[in-house]
Each structure stands twice: as C-alpha cells, then as structure tokens.
C-alpha cells in the first residue's frame, strides 16, 4: 500500500512543507522484464495542499514525476494550530492523505 508522509518546518515567518509519497508512478510504457507485458499506468494525478480546509496549492501530474514522489513547498501565513492537510488521487482511483498541525511542532 501507499504511504504519505509530510513534515512542517517553520522558518523566518514561512513554513516549509515537505511531502513524500510511496507510489510506483508507472507511466504505462515500461515492460515487465520477465513476462514482457506492459506494466499498466499507475500514477498520481492530483495533489492538494490545504490549510484549515482551504486549498493553498494544487498540482496536476503524470508519469514524468519520479517514483515515490517528493515535493517541497513554502507556505505563507501559517499560524500555530493551523491544520495542514495533503491529499492525492491517482489514475486508478486510489487516494492518500496526511495531516499535521503546526502547534505539534513547537
């Protein structure tokens, strides 16, 4: 199964958000080395970051993003106690999420 990890790191009034998702990110053109059959496409399509339920940023992607994708962003205006939530949905309908409150850190 897939796993989603996030980390918040407040620095100089901004908050760094790092995201690591365990996901194969298959683009559908790779072949299984033993059976020579195409490995079906399996990649994350959308990623959404929200602050207290309000979308801060969203991303659309496909198979050109590396396996087990890593992203980092800098968020502004995040205060102690704010809930940061990361959601993703892939092309096979699977989804994952992770959330963290800024207060948990300080």
């Amino acid at each position, binding site marked *: 199964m897939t796993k989603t990890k996030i980390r918040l790191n407040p620095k100089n009034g901004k908050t760094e958000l790092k995201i690591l998702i365990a996901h194969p990110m298959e683009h559908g053109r790779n072949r299984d080395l033993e059976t020579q059959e195409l490995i079906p496409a399996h990649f994350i399509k959308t990623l959404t970051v929200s602050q207290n339920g309000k979308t801060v940023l969203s*991303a659309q992607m496909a198979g050109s993003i590396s396996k087990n994708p890593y992203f980092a962003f800098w968020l502004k205006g995040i205060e102690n106690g704010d809930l940061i939530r990361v959601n993703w949905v892939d092309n096979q309908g699977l989804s994952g999420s992770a959330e963290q409150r800024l207060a948990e850190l300080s």
Partner: protein
Amino acid sequence: MTYSRRKFLRHATTSGCYVIAACAGLMTPGQVFAEWAEDYFSPGKLEQTLDRLFAGADIADSAAISLNLPLIAEDGAVVPIKVSSTLNDVESIAILVEKNPVPLAAIFTLSENADHFVSAQLKMAETCDVIAVIKAGDQLYSARQQVKVTIGGCGG
C-alpha cells in the same frame, strides 16, 4: 459480527479520503488548472503541449525565474528540480521535460498563501532541456536549462 477495531479504522480512513478528495475538487472550480486534463498529459512534442496548455500565447524568457537543476544527471529516473521566482502574482508553475514522451511533468497552481517555490523530482528519458513556465498576471514567462542524462555512468 466480528468487525475489528483495526478494520473499522481502515475503512473509515479510506472512505474519508474519498470524501475529502471530492470536497477538494469542489473547492477549486475557479482555478485555471484545477482539473487534471488528458490533453495536457497526452504524448506529443513540447510545442504541442505548450499550445494545449496555454492556447498558443506568447511565452517570454525571464531572468526572474531561477531553476535549480543538476547539469549532469547520473540517473534519469530521479532528477531533482527547484523552481523559484521573484515575479509578482504568480498563478501557476508548469514543469516540462523537452524530450519525454509526455513533456508535461507537473503543473502547480499556487494561491497567495503559497510562496513562489516548487521542489520536485523528474524522470528524464534522455539529455534535453527542462523548461519551467510561470503564469503571472496574465503573462507567461519561462526559463530553461539543459540536463545531461548519463546512462550507466558512461558519460554523455
């Protein structure tokens, strides 16, 4: 009925995710690139993808975009990239790999609470340019840099 706590939790989280994902989709109808579009991520040449993304609008080279990419990537499967910009009113950042079968790697839509910065990891099929296109205040700006992909460590 034996419905263990563990099982309940698992089901609760999975269905919860779908609900939240659906809500997230509903909350961003006004955003330009809020929906995943087959068109953007279909195979083709870089120029075709740019046309589909930006409807043929002019893209100006800009020194206000900084790309942080390796000059030589030993492994084309994981090429780290950082894009940042000092432009005002940045709405979206698109990252494209010139010679990948599907050139568009990802497009990020940023709200005012997100800094103009994106860090990610790309797959690159071969040595080529990586392009970042930023939409800021109805204008398009871009920056590009070549990345040499060495396969099997034989140099490029």
